[in-house]
């Protein structure tokens, strides 16, 4: 293995226009999902009179600090369909956007450490195959062949009893993904407006007709929310209550190392997930902190436990130094599946509740959210992820395949 060089930055990626007084569509949140939504509104639906409003800077929230894992090995049909659609889009996006964001299909291993893990893993492999998702069950010796630095000895506290493997899964360079989408959306006529915080919503009866911002009032035919951890705070300003809870999610990276880690390894049971970035940092994540929070930091014991698990699984990491840690805010739903669809307020749409796993879904979230906003109707892929499932009871319980405790 050799480290791959990073792509050169183009000189100019997007304009920085002042907001117009009115748009056909306003998207709130210029993270990956907001940018992908704008891109597909323009590309798939020909709607280019669009503004994406961002209170901070473009892709500066969870998109800037995530563990960049892309996979589609979810259990239920609804989830497999939308995440596999995302993976297929990822496979063609670098060419389509003419921007090499280093999508690396190095595979993902989900380890099993208990008999129940083994049964759940085998079941998920079978479910994945029935849904056309590539998946294999690996015994410990096969796990060791895929990732030789993993400790598969039977003498650890939680021995590796096997694992699921999705070869088409991988990682991508998250910042470059955002910039690639932003550049193309901008070229198609979308206004990307940074430093523009939505402070309220203009309503005509039960219909939204615009937003108030710190840069003035902006009228809009339709408004889409894609604000991740702050979705419920934002929706509340429009009079919409969302069944989400915001939690800090921490991750960390090490200093740079020679390429040693050839794939992505996740473990639900001892709870850590690790890959090695293109430059050489070990990128590690754990579960969310238990309590609600918007402070963009979490508790140290969560990091301590994730590193203990990492060192047990990867003894050669024991002397690696942590370079930086961070906490992002994720919005978690009761069934660990996202909400993409309409709200009780007419012309107001929401894309939220991705919890700890929004990055992998970026293209499909944009694709389906753009369809919903453009047509006023859900796409078949996001119809099951409507807000009303919490009333009908048609939940999509992905706590197992979500892989990260939340």
């Amino acid at each position, binding site marked *: 293995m050799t480290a791959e060089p990073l792509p050169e930055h183009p000189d100019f990626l997007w304009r920085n226009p002042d907001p117009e007084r009115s748009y056909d569509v306003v998207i709130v949140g210029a993270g990956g999902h907001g940018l992908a939504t704008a891109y597909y509104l323009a590309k798939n639906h020909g709607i280019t009179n669009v503004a994406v409003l961002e209170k901070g800077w473009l892709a500066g929230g969870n998109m800037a600090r995530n563990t960049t894992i892309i996979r589609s090995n979810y259990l239920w049909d609804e989830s497999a369909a939308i995440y596999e659609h995302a993976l297929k889009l990822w496979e063609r996006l670098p060419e389509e956007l003419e921007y090499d964001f280093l999508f690396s299909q190095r595979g993902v291993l989900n380890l099993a450490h208990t008999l129940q893990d083994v049964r759940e893993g085998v079941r998920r492999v079978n479910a994945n195959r029935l849904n056309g998702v590539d998946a294999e069950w690996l015994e410990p010796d096969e796990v060791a062949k895929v990732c030789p630095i993993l400790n598969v000895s039977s003498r650890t506290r939680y021995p590796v009893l096997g694992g699921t493997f999705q070869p088409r899964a991988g990682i991508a360079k998250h910042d470059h993904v955002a910039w690639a989408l932003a550049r193309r959306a901008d070229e198609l006529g979308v206004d990307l407006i940074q430093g523009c915080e939505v402070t309220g919503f203009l309503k005509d009866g039960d219909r939204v007709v615009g937003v108030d911002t710190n840069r003035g009032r902006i009228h809009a035919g339709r408004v889409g929310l894609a604000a991740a951890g702050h979705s419920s705070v934002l929706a509340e300003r429009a009079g919409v209550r969302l069944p989400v809870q*915001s939690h800090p999610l921490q991750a960390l990276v090490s200093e740079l190392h020679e390429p040693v880690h050839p794939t992505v390894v996740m473990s639900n049971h001892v709870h850590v997930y690790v890959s090695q970035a293109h430059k050489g940092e070990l990128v590690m994540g754990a579960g969310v902190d238990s309590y609600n929070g918007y402070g963009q930091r979490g508790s140290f014991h969560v990091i301590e436990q994730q590193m203990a698990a990492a060192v047990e699984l990867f003894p050669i990491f024991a002397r690696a130094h942590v370079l930086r840690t961070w906490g992002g805010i994720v919005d978690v739903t009761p069934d660990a599946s996202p909400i993409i669809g309409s709200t009780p307020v007419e012309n107001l749409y929401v894309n939220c509740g991705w919890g700890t796993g929004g990055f992998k879904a970026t293209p499909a979230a944009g694709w389906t959210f753009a369809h919903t906003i453009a047509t006023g109707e859900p796409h078949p892929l996001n119809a099951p992820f409507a807000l009303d499932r919490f009333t009908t009871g048609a939940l999509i319980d992905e706590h197992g395949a979500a892989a990260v405790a939340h």
Partner: protein
Amino acid sequence: MLLITCPWCGPRNETEYHYGGQAHVPHPESPADLTDEQWAEYVFYRDNPKGPFAERWMHSVGCRRWFNVLRDTATHEVLTSYRLDEPRPGGNR
């Protein structure tokens, strides 16, 4: 790490506690009369404020008793803790 005061045992590290979500969510008085929307509200919908939040914690490795904490979710400041039979300090639920 949060420093949380158990009303019975005093201040202890967060790792001694288990989190229980929003406080003051009463069980419906006549469950048989609820609509689907009201059930959804009771089961799945909780407040998610950016600011003071009344929440439940259990001192799981100490006295094993549940109690309430008023905590600012933006600053992580633990404002006060109080027993389950006490009202939220400062009113408002």
